[in-house]
C-alpha cells in the first residue's frame, strides 16, 4: 500500500515532509475544570503522517479527551501536543491546527450546522475566509469524495445516520484537513451505516494518504487500523499493531476489552488444548490455522 501517494483531492496542499509526525503528544496531562482526577494522565503517543490508528478503551477512559487535545479544543495542563508541527498551546495557530486536524463526533445529528447538505460542507471553509469560487470547488470535490454528491441539496434530517456522518467527513475534507479524528463515529449507526463510514475513512486513508485517528468501541474496526492504542483510567496502557495488542490477553482481561471474534475463537481453542499461533488474527488466518492443526 502506498501511503505517501498523495493523489487527487489534496494535491495543492504543501506537504510538510514525508515522514513527519502528524500528531505528537508528549507526556500530556489534562484535567477538566472542577474535576479532581485527570482525564488524561501522562500520555505520550505519536501518530505518523498517513497512518490509520485506532484508540480503544471504555467510556470514561480518556479517549475522547485525548481527541479534543488533538484538535486544540482543549490544551494540556502539562506536556505538549503538536499537530503537523504546530503546538496547540500557540494560540495564533489555533485555526490552522483545527483546519489541519478535523474532527467527526459521535452524534450524527448534532454536528451538522446548516439546513442544506452543501451549505454544511461549506461551513468550515467559509469560517476561514476561503473565496466563494474556491469553496464551491472544494465542496463539490468533498461531497464526491464521500459519495454524497447526489444529496448536495437535501436537508440533513432526511438522511440516514451513515449519510450524515459522511457529510460530516466531507465538511472536514472541504477544510483540506490532512488529519481526521473520529470520536466514536459509528456508535449510533446501524451495521449498514457503520460500513459506509468505515469504507469511506479507509478509502481516504489509502487513496489520499489522509491520517486517520479512529476512537471506537468496536474491536472489528480497531482491527483494521495500522496501530492500536488502548486507554484505561486516563492512561495509555498498550500500543502496537492490532495483531500485537489483541494477542496480549492479560492486558485485555485487565481492561475488560473483548478481542475481535477470530481472536476469541483462537483463545478458546488454545485454552482447550488446541494451540494456535498467537499471531493468527484475521478470519482467514484463524481458519487456515484450524485446518492445519486438525
Amino acid at each position, binding site marked *: 500500500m502506498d501511503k505517501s501517494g498523495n493523489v487527487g483531492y489534496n494535491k495543492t496542499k504543501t506537504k510538510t515532509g514525508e515522514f513527519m509526525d502528524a500528531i505528537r503528544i508528549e507526556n500530556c496531562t489534562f484535567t477538566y475544570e472542577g474535576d479532581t482526577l485527570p482525564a488524561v494522565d501522562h500520555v505520550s503517543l505519536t501518530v505518523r503522517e498517513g497512518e490509520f490508528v485506532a484508540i480503544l478503551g*471504555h*467510556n*470514561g477512559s480518556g479517549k475522547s479527551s485525548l481527541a479534543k487535545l488533538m484538535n486544540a479544543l482543549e490544551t494540556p495542563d502539562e506536556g505538549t501536543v503538536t499537530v503537523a508541527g504546530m503546538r496547540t498551546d500557540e494560540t495564533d495557530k489555533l485555526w490552522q491546527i483545527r483546519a489541519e486536524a478535523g474532527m467527526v463526533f*459521535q452524534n450524527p445529528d448534532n454536528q451538522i450546522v446548516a439546513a442544506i447538505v452543501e451549505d454544511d460542507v461549506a461551513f468550515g471553509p467559509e469560517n476561514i475566509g476561503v473565496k466563494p469560487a474556491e469553496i464551491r470547488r472544494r465542496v463539490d470535490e468533498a461531497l464526491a469524495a464521500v459519495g454524497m454528491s447526489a444529496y448536495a441539496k437535501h436537508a440533513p434530517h432526511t438522511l*440516514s*445516520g451513515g449519510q450524515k456522518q459522511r457529510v460530516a467527513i466531507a465538511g472536514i475534507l472541504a477544510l483540506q484537513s490532512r488529519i481526521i479524528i473520529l470520536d*466514536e463515529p459509528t*456508535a*449510533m449507526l*446501524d*451495521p*449498514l*451505516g457503520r460500513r459506509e463510514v468505515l469504507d469511506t475513512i479507509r478509502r481516504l486513508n489509502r487513496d489520499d494518504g489522509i491520517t486517520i485517528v479512529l476512537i471506537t*468501541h468496536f474491536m472489528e474496526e480497531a482491527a483494521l487500523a495500522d496501530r492500536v492504542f488502548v486507554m484505561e483510567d486516563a492512561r495509555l496502557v498498550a500500543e502496537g499493531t492490532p495483531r500485537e495488542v489483541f494477542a496480549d490477553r492479560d492486558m485485555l482481561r485487565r481492561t*475488560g*476489552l*473483548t478481542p475481535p*471474534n*477470530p481472536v*476469541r*475463537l483462537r483463545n*478458546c*481453542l488454545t485454552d*482447550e*488444548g*488446541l494451540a494456535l499461533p498467537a499471531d493468527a488474527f484475521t*478470519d482467514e488466518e*484463524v*481458519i487456515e490455522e*484450524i*485446518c492445519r*492443526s*486438525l
Partner: protein
Amino acid sequence: MSIVVKNLTHIYDQGGPFEAKALDGVSFEAHEPAIIGLMGHTGCGKSTLVQHLNALLLPTAGSVVVCGIDTRTDKSRLRELRHRVGMVFQYPEYQLFEETVARDIAFGLRDSGLSEEEKKKRVRAAMEEVALDYDTYAEKSPFDLSGGQKRRAAIAGVLVMEPEILVMDEPAAGLDPRGKEEIDDIIRRYHEKHGATVLIVTHNMDEAAALCSRILVMENGTIAADGSPRQVFSDAERVKAVGLDVPYAARTAAALISRGVPVRPDVLTVEELAAEILRIKEERRA
C-alpha cells in the same frame, strides 16, 4: 401473557402527501415466555411493529391482541395494557426528568394505587434489577449519573411496572462493551425472574444468537423469517438477502465446512464453534 398479531398493516399519513406503508400484513404469535430478537435493517418496519404492541400506534388494518386486549376495540383497557407491556425506547436516558433517580423510576407507578411503602419497595427492586445500588443512587439526580447508569435508571423506570412483556428498541446502542454486557444481563435476569417475554430490537447478530431463543427477521414491512436462531442463521443466503450479517460463528463454520472440516453448520457462538472443532480433533485423533 400472549401476543397475537394478525395481518397487521400500518400506513403512515394515509391519504396525505407523505403516505407510506410501514407494515404489510404482518402476522406472528408468542405465547410462551421467551427472549425474542426482532431484526432487520433500518426502515424495515421494526419500530412501527413494536409500537403497536402497547397501542402507541393502532393498526390501519388487521389486529393486535396483547394479553387478551385488542388494541383497536378495548379502548378502556389501553392504560392497563401500557402497564403490562413495558416499552424501552432507543436512548431511553433522554426521557429522564425527575429530581431524583427514585422519583423518576416511580413515575410509572403514580396512578397505580400502591401505597408509598409499596412503591418504594418496587423502586428498590427495579434498581436491583438493573444493578444500581439503591442507597447510593436513589436520591441522586439522574442527570449526575454516567451514560451507562442513566440508561439503566431509565430501564428501571419501565421494569418498575413489572410488565409481563418487555419491549426494548436497541437497548445497548451507543454503549461501550461493558455497558452492553450489563444490558444483556438485565434482559436475561428479568426474563428468568418474572417469566416475562422480552422482545428486543437489535442489529447485533452475535448478541441475538447468544441471547434469543427466537428470531423474527423483517424486511419491507413483512416478516421474512421466523424461527430459532439456529434455523434462521443456518440459512445464510436468506439472511444476507435481507441485508443482515450472519453471526461470526455460523459464518466461520460455513467456511470450515467448505474446507472439509465437518463442523455442525448451525453453531451460534464462538464457544460452540470451538467445542465443535475440538470434537472433530478428538474424532480424528481416535
